[in-house]
């Protein structure tokens, strides 16, 4: 066939150019196949890009928080709020002592009614002397209280004017940006001379010292003559009260000295803004006095809830993994594994709802049962607390821990187990001495990843943890688990919708998010590192 022969001759004549090469189209200097490879490679980069973007945006939105917080603290100092707070701390301490006294009264009343068997009226009559004493004690602070409320008004006024000025400056800036020069010039800003204004506040120090002296004198009189109480245990409490009050009186000169040496012009370093966030014990927003963005209550809450969850989930998850992998029959294995995986598919918001509707109420009722009264913290009144959230988070962490731990146990070489049996070890000895130690690295990393899951969980803690922003009272011992808490994830979910973008509160939430992000990354890092470093391999 002539046409064919001509074509082969063409190919033969140019031996270097195969047909397959001729058809290669070039696109930007790349062959079609290389283009495809680059396309897929680019897609693979998406994960890196996303991680970078998350970091970038969290930093972008969060980083200026520390500057803003510094301004926030600077104003607190410049306007004299810090000075007034030194005095107000005394007032607060005094109020706490009054509360202590009220607690003693309640106990005495109970003693009269329950142990002596008096009717309530009679008990109150016997407490008349005590009530008079408590009232005198409460009134002792009247002299400083008056002064402090005046000072508070002065300080808030300075702060309010400063904030007004800031708003006006912003308005002027906007008008200028819009090109309305005349209107911008018409915006009148009255500058505040902080040292002069604050001098008004600090000049009251001698008067305050006088009031403070009379306060301490009346306290001393009161401490010297406490009312008599019928029971040694109650008397001991009163003794403790005297001790506390004496310590309180002893702190007076110190407070006065710090008020004396207080200086509004001391600049606030950026490090203080940083430590006020990380170690701050108050998260107080939209307050008329002073906003605080301290992450400690949130971190403590997150830790407490996660700890409860892990205490529940680790024994259950690891135990179940050992059981399913080593002890269960094949039928059980086939059923249990998917069933536990199925639990992990229960959406967290449904679990949160379950906590509100069923578990919280159940735990509250159960805490009232008399045979459970030995449990620390029982009975409790709030149905939404760290324990409720912790139980549900435990259920969320169990499938993660179970799946990963089961994998780790499954990866232990068969020979280990067989050698152990051959040496005459029983099944349990093999599990505890051979299987678990060999897979320990995997189990630990499973627990770390479970912890990461729990710390990052939002809906359950938002719905069930009680949302009280305060550091849980760890002096209650184990009973701390029944206190309501707020968490890092919960605060973001709760407040993000209500804040104004760009404001300090908005940025504070982003810094909390950044903190969460890094906690997750660190946990992930350690989980991987532990697996790699301590992996037991054969040979």
């Amino acid at each position, binding site marked *: 066939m002539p046409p064919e022969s001509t074509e082969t001759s063409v190919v033969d004549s140019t031996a270097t150019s195969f047909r397959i090469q001729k058809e290669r189209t070039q696109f930007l200097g790349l062959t079609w196949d290389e283009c495809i490879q680059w396309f897929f490679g680019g*897609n693979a980069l998406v994960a890196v890009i996303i991680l970078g973007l998350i970091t970038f945006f969290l930093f972008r939105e969060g980083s200026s928080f520390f500057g803003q917080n510094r301004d926030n603290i600077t104003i607190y100092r410049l306007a004299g709020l810090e000075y007034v707070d030194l005095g107000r701390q005394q007032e607060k301490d005094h109020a706490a002592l009054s509360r202590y006294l009220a607690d003693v009264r309640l106990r005495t009343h109970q003693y009269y009614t329950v142990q002596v068997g008096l009717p309530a009226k009679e008990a109150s009559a016997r407490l008349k002397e005590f009530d008079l004493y408590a009232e005198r004690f409460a009134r002792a602070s009247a002299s400083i209280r008056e002064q402090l409320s005046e000072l508070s008004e002065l300080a808030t006024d300075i702060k309010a004017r400063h904030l007004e000025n800031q708003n006006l400056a912003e308005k002027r800036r906007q008008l200028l940006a819009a090109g309305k020069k005349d209107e911008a010039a018409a915006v009148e800003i009255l500058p505040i001379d902080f040292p002069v204004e604050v001098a008004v506040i600090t000049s009251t120090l001698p008067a305050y010292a006088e009031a403070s002296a009379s306060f301490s004198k009346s306290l001393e009189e009161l401490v010297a003559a406490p009312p008599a109480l019928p029971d040694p245990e109650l008397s001991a409490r009163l003794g403790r009260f005297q001790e506390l009050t004496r310590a309180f009186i002893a702190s007076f000169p110190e407070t006065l000295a710090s008020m004396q040496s207080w200086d509004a012009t001391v600049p606030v370093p950026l490090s203080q803004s940083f430590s006020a966030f990380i170690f701050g014990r108050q998260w107080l927003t939209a307050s008329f006095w002073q906003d605080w963005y301290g992450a400690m209550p949130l971190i403590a809450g997150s830790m407490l809830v996660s700890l409860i969850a892990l205490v529940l989930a680790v024994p259950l998850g690891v135990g179940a993994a050992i059981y399913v992998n080593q002890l269960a029959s094949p039928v059980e294995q086939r059923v249990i594994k998917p069933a536990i995986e199925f639990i992990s598919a229960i959406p967290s918001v449904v679990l949160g709802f379950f906590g509100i509707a069923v578990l919280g109420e159940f735990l509250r009722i159960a805490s009232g049962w008399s045979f459970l009264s030995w449990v620390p913290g029982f009975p409790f009144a709030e149905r939404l607390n760290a324990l409720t959230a912790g139980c549900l988070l435990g259920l969320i962490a169990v499938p993660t821990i179970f799946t990963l731990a089961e994998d780790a146990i499954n990866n232990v070489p068969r020979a280990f187990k067989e050698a152990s049996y051959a040496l005459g070890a029983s099944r349990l000895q093999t599990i505890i001495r051979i299987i678990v130690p060999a897979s320990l690295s995997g189990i630990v990393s499973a627990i770390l990843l479970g912890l990461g899951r729990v710390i990052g969980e939002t809906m359950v803690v938002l719905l069930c943890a009680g949302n009280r922003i305060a550091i849980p009272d760890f002096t209650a011992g184990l009973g701390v688990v029944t206190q309501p808490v707020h968490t890092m994830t919960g605060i973001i979910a709760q407040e993000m919708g209500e804040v104004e973008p760009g404001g300090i509160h908005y940025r504070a939430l982003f810094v909390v998010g950044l903190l969460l992000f890094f906690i997750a990354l660190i946990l992930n890092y350690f989980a991987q590192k532990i697996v790699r470093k301590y992996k037991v391999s054969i040979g």
Partner: protein
Amino acid sequence: MTALPHSFAPRRGFQRRCESTIAWVFRAATYAILLSGVFVIGNICLKGLPAVTNSFRSLEQFPYVTNTFLFEAPESLYVFEQDGVKREMGDKEYRSYREAETARATAEGRPVPEFKAASYVYAAGGIWPCIVGTVLLVLGAMTIALLLGVSSAIFLSEYARDSVFVRFIRLAILNLAGVPSIVFGLFGFAMFVLFFDWNVSLMAGWFTLAFMVLPVVITASEEALKAVPKGFREGSLALGATKWQTIRKNVLPYALPGILTSSILGIARVAGETAPIMFTAAYVVRDKLPWEVSKFGDFFFQGVMALPYHIYVVSSKIPQNEYTQGVQYGTAFVFLGLVALIAGSSILLRNKLRGRYQW
């Protein structure tokens, strides 16, 4: 005491008792997990099922039957007493009833009756907009996640060699998997909602959810691709096919079922998450359905109602009582059912495929 049958027979003794006790402890742990799971699901199903089954209504025209809980929008519930009868009505019904009663009273010359109703938001009507919103969110997010994830997995399994670059990518994927969902929500809010100015919209929700589920999809797809035997690729390459032809004709078709089934677990996760859509895509309440938009472009830039967010709203923002219980449990039940259906089908399919594809 009877003699032992042979020297290897199990002996009764302290050690053996100990052993069986500890085995029972492990068994108890396993079944405790299962029981608590069953209890949660059972409780929600039992209390939520009536909300769905009690709201079937007959219709005049075609489908002849409808379910008011599934196919209607949420309304406020009004509870009031009228002539000694306690009545519960949805918003629309209550208004027309009030008008009718007032008209009747004035016609008969009676004084206009007073209506004192206690109202509970969202407690009447149904959850149709939430179901629609969730389905839309899942569809869009999974499309994006599958496109990105599968291509990424193809690169990692087919093209990549062990280099620093590839190890870096794997590290990023691993770390991305551990990022808390609320952080994705924050990121989506900062980037899509504020920086791109998409507002609270489907688009923002899609991308946020897609990014969140990406590691799951990549890992699952890579495993499915790796499961295709090397011989398939080598045979194809030996016959002169290019790399892409090999992947397209001889690798992807065999990996596809695996990719899809494992990705269904990703769908369950996308459908179940609330935190990422809280500030990116979800509205507390919206009157219009998503397709009721004036022009096509608006479709992508509208917020929607979503089931998980609706559960959050009805369980935290309205009180718990006999009137609100129906909608609370009902929504949780429908949502749980939806997620269970997705997750269950994935587990079933995987078990089935494991048997079929063995080479």
